[in-house]
């Protein structure tokens, strides 16, 4: 019983972070129909930003984790918008594969440029300084919950709540939904589509940065390639939930978290194979995902 609960808890914590990252994929896909392959690398940059900021502010400001998180998010928002302007905008009218290859190029560029500039070896993330570990609950028969797990999950949920508010209640959020549904109709309403796309990249990248900091906090290290697997898994989560659907990404993220923690427990060496099999099966059986809409080609 305790192991089951432990597996569930781990899945929930991991899943909430995946959901956060998956949101970025899904929002960008919604407005651009582009699989932003570089999203995982923005996560990595967010973690590195967190590493430098966290290391320097840990002792000097109150609530260093919050400061680190917010600053990394701002930095990555700017990076995300810049990537879109420089690399994606020129290929916006091109076939989707041209854009996909561009995105893969951006992904590799970010990884290896970071490796070149900051060095390829992993560095220790100042997790302990930012948030000293302690066990919050030690009730017999229940799994131990650490404060770090609570903070990670809480931050992820809070950010998802914030995103939900933005998308549902703010003008820009509504414009984002309008653009992802019908770009031309949105233009006819006076919506500046370029601006909305930039806004989407800013939000998505900020969430990725938050995901990066939370990952680094959990695993205690950062390296230039750390974004690849969380990125791929969050992407699978987005597809699973139905790419383009915001509640779908949240649901998909949680399902991915549970799948991964269960697979780690039973068949740990095949964990990634299980995850990718889930991806392939979902794509084959229900390409639109759980909450996605199907696309029909017009003849």
């Amino acid at each position, binding site marked *: 019983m305790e192991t089951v609960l432990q597996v569930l808890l781990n899945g929930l914590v991991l899943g909430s972070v995946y959901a956060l990252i998956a949101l970025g994929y899904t929002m960008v896909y919604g407005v651009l129909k582009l*699989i932003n392959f570089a999203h995982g690398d923005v996560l990595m940059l967010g973690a590195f930003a967190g590493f430098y900021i966290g290391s320097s502010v840990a002792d000097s400001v109150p609530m260093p984790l919050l400061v680190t998180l917010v600053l990394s998010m701002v930095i990555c928002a700017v990076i995300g918008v810049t990537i879109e302007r420089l*690399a994606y905008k*020129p*290929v916006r009218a*091109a*076939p*989707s*594969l*041209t*854009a*996909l*290859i*561009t995105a*893969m*190029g*951006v*992904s*590799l*560029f970010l*990884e*290896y*440029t970071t*490796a*070149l500039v900051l060095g*390829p070896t992993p560095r220790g993330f100042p997790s302990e300084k930012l948030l000293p570990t302690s066990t919050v609950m030690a009730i017999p028969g229940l799994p131990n919950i650490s404060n770090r797990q609570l903070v990670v999950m809480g931050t992820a949920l809070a950010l998802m709540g914030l995103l939900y508010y933005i998308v549902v209640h703010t003008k820009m959020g509504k414009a984002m939904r309008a653009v992802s549904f019908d770009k031309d109709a949105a233009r006819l309403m006076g919506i500046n589509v370029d601006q909305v796309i930039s806004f989407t990249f800013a939000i998505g990248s900020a969430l990725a940065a938050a995901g990066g900091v939370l990952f680094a906090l959990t695993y205690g290290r950062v390296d230039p390639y750390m974004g690849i697997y969380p990125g*791929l898994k969050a*992407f*699978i989560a987005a*597809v699973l939930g139905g790419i383009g659907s915001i509640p779908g990404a949240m649901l998909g993220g949680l399902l991915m978290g549970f799948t991964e923690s269960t697979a780690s427990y039973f068949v740990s*060496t*095949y964990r*990634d*194979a299980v995850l*990718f*099999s889930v*991806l*392939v099966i979902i*794509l*084959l059986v229900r*390409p639109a995902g759980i909450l996605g809409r199907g696309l029909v*080609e017009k*003849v």
Partner: protein
Amino acid sequence: MGDYLKKWAMLVGACLLLFVFDRYAFWALNGFWQNLILLAGINMVAALGLNLTNGYCGQFSLGHAGFMAIGGYATAFFTMMFAWPDWMLTFPHPEFPIVFPISLILGGVLAAAAGLLVGIPSLRLKGDYLAIATLGFGEIVRVFLVNFEYMGAARGQTNIPQYSNFFWVYSIVLISTVVILNLIRSSPGRAIISVREDELAAEVMGVWTVYYKVAAFLLGAFFAGVAGGLLGHLLTILTPEKFNFVLSIEIVVIVVVGGMGSTSGVLLAAVLLTALPELLRFTSGAASIPGLSLLGEPSMRMILYSLTMIFLMIFRPKGLCGNKEMWELWGRKGS
């Protein structure tokens, strides 16, 4: 009839020339160049295969490394572990045993079988979804190899005999090129291309698109498998990590740079993209110029790759040759 025999006789003759070159001249090059030339040839074979799937048929696949892995491991299995009769291991010459080409073909066939396995279900997918599904396939293959104790698991399969030499690699490049050019200049080949151009229009012209998509997948996987077999028998070691998704991307970049659907363009790109980063390694020694020595950094190779991808997509999304052959482009300029 005469033409036909003459063409194939020329091909055999060319292979013999390669053999002579291999025996009497190739050894004179230093090891670095030898390695570079052989790697370029292997990349050519892999890229020719991917060009069939991606370039001619338009089925974007990011799982080429997976097929190469299957071919590589299977070929190594057949040359090392399979119970061949003894004479086959030394006939006609211990350095050129007959088992090697047989194993390469078997490795290719196994990879093609995997191609069929991936190709049929993937027919339901298009564009970037297909790309992602094949990427998933490649990763699954890799994870299984990591757990494949029989052939070294994560440590990899070592002590593979070094059978890949100039003769084998370039004979295979030559034959592959001829066969692929023949295929695409035929009715089935045009059917494959029509799927890329406009799947619906192809269907309405009577092309059984499902069949040709699977065929393109299967053939692409076959060449990938052979390339994987050559690679294993060049490096003498195969690790699952070698076949990660960066390898798939490298082959994709060769095809994209060369021009999707241009055999000669892809061959040229395979040479350029294999040679360029390796040659840049020289500059790491030239430490006197800081900017130049930076080019020798291992990361720089991938940065150049990635920048090539991005700028190519923005400024010349059709690659060096588009979907034309070099001689066609040349002829156009001349006329």
